[in-house]
């Protein structure tokens, strides 16, 4: 987003106090930032500091260790990496990110954005309303809806039954496939909206002149539209990845991470370790890893795209 150039205040309120030191002026100008800085420091940086500290102690939720937690260094991380559940969860999280965010939401979102340009008005309005509806719903309601859809006696199996196919128990036999499809359903609207806006910004003269030169629709898409919206594509890839990395409710309601830990992505595993198995240190160590991955993605995003800050 290109923000308008921040206007300087050349004749600002303080030209009459020229004698004051620059730093003093900068400070007073920054005072309105103070409440934000305090809130962010306590409730955003606070948990981050807590996470790094907690990951290095043997605190657990109940029992004697709850009162007096000891410093154990990197023991939590060592145990975590030794536990077969953790690498499995990393794999599941990666699959969840790749298939539901990077491929599912982005490809379907771009496809919908392109298709919606050709559709007639009632179709366009109807389809985009439904897609946005799945996105704007509160997450717990969306999770129930997805649960009912994939449940053994749910809508999907009723439809399959109507055409003579006995559907499996999706949530039990294919938990990852179910939550991946559910997350595509839930999140595609965001990509669709981003890509629709980006495609609208492509000057029509360019695609028209390509059409005159005999480029087919496919060629125009690959050679013109996609290169022209590449900034939106990379921004959107990053944002959908980060959003999907923190998905908890959808998976928790649909499968509870199960059966066993067969659909425990990292946020679900962190919850299970901390609150089901009373391993607060484990859960915190997972949170630290999630935090580092999120920070890495954020830095790549900021460096590669250099969003205009002013």
């Amino acid at each position, binding site marked *: 987003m290109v*923000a308008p150039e*921040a206007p*300087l*205040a050349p*004749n600002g*309120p303080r030209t009459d106090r020229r004698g004051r030191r620059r730093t003093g002026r900068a400070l007073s100008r*920054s005072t*309105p*930032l103070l*409440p*934000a800085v305090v*809130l*962010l420091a306590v*409730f955003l940086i*606070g*948990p*981050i500091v*807590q*996470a790094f500290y*907690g990951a290095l102690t043997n605190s657990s939720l109940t029992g004697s260790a709850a009162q007096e937690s000891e410093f154990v260094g990197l023991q939590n991380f060592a145990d975590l990496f030794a536990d077969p559940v953790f690498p499995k969860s990393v794999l599941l999280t990666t699959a969840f990110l790749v298939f539901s965010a990077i491929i599912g939401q982005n490809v379907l979102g771009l496809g*919908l954005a392109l*298709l*919606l340009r*050709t559709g*007639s008005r009632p*179709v*366009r309005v109807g*389809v985009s309303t*439904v*897609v*946005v509806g799945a996105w*704007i*719903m*509160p*997450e717990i*309601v*969306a999770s*129930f809806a*997805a649960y*009912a859809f994939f449940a053994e*006696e749910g*809508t999907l199996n*009723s439809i399959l039954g109507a055409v003579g196919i006995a559907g499996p128990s999706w949530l039990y036999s294919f938990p990852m496939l179910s939550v991946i499809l559910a997350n595509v359903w839930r999140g595609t609207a965001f990509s669709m*909206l981003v890509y629709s*806006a980006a495609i609208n910004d492509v000057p029509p003269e360019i695609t028209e002149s390509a059409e005159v030169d005999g480029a087919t629709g496919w060629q125009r898409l690959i050679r013109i539209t996609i290169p022209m919206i590449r900034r*939106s594509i990379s921004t959107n890839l990053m*944002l959908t990845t980060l959003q999907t990395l923190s998905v*908890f*409710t959808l998976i928790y309601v649909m499968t509870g991470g199960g059966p066993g830990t067969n659909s425990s992505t990292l946020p679900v595993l*962190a919850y299970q370790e901390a609150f089901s198995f009373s391993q607060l240190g484990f*859960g*915190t160590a997972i949170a630290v890893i*999630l*935090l580092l*991955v*999120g*920070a890495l993605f*954020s830095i790549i995003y*900021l460096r590669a795209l250099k969003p205009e*800050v002013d």
Partner: protein
Amino acid sequence: MAAEGLTAPRHRSLRLVSTLVLVLIGICFLLPLVWVVLASFDGSATLTAKAPSPFTLDNFVKVLTPENAWIPLGNSLLLSAGCALVTVVVAVLAAYPLSRYSVRSNRAFLYGILFGTGLPITAMMVPVYSLFVSLDLLNSYPGIILFLAATSLPMAIWMAKNFMDSVPISIEEAAWTDGSSMLSTLGRIVVPLMRPGIGVVFIFVFIQAWGNFFVPFILITDQAAMPAAVSIYSFFGAYGAVAYGQLAAFSLLYSVPVLALYLLVQRLSGGSFALAGAVKG
């Protein structure tokens, strides 16, 4: 001319195919949502979407009791409105120097804000829980409101700054020369001019807080203080298997405010892109 004659039928069949694909995708997206609506009016609701038989409002009547619906919905309102109010006030205050003065530290702050929007804070509720235990803030509404506000602040500041950037500075310059202070210029001139923008930020934050499940699920253990998101979940655990109709009715009631606010935000900003657009880098 000849080329047009050749491509026209092809265009028409392409259009037909793309319409069919669109309708098919639309139906796939609609099916899970349809269940919530149909089951809520169904006297014998199951997990399958089917026509209500018998059609009844019983599910709503049974759910609309103080302890089932009104108290949790009131709690949700308190949490979301509190969070949206705190966030908007703090974000507008912060946006003013960021938008109006070009100080080098602003750049760093804005990059920090953007970085903060990327952190999966809601995925790390375990350390947040530990922090709330050590600050003795579990079940405390002020604590949870401030935490929710802090998590939505990065995005809200970013949005508020962008809205403020589009308010022309010339009117403020006149106020400045009249000796108006920074705060009164902000309150009397800038805020009224960016009212729709402030509305969008408020609704954006409100919708997020209203729909948030994980944060109150972890930080509120007191049954009476639970917002609707969590009480629906406990309802599901307690009666879900027998009362799908009531579960769906409650879900529908709880979703209606969000849908209404989304329509309002579209009015305010003239497009469904407002929420997503604010997030575009």
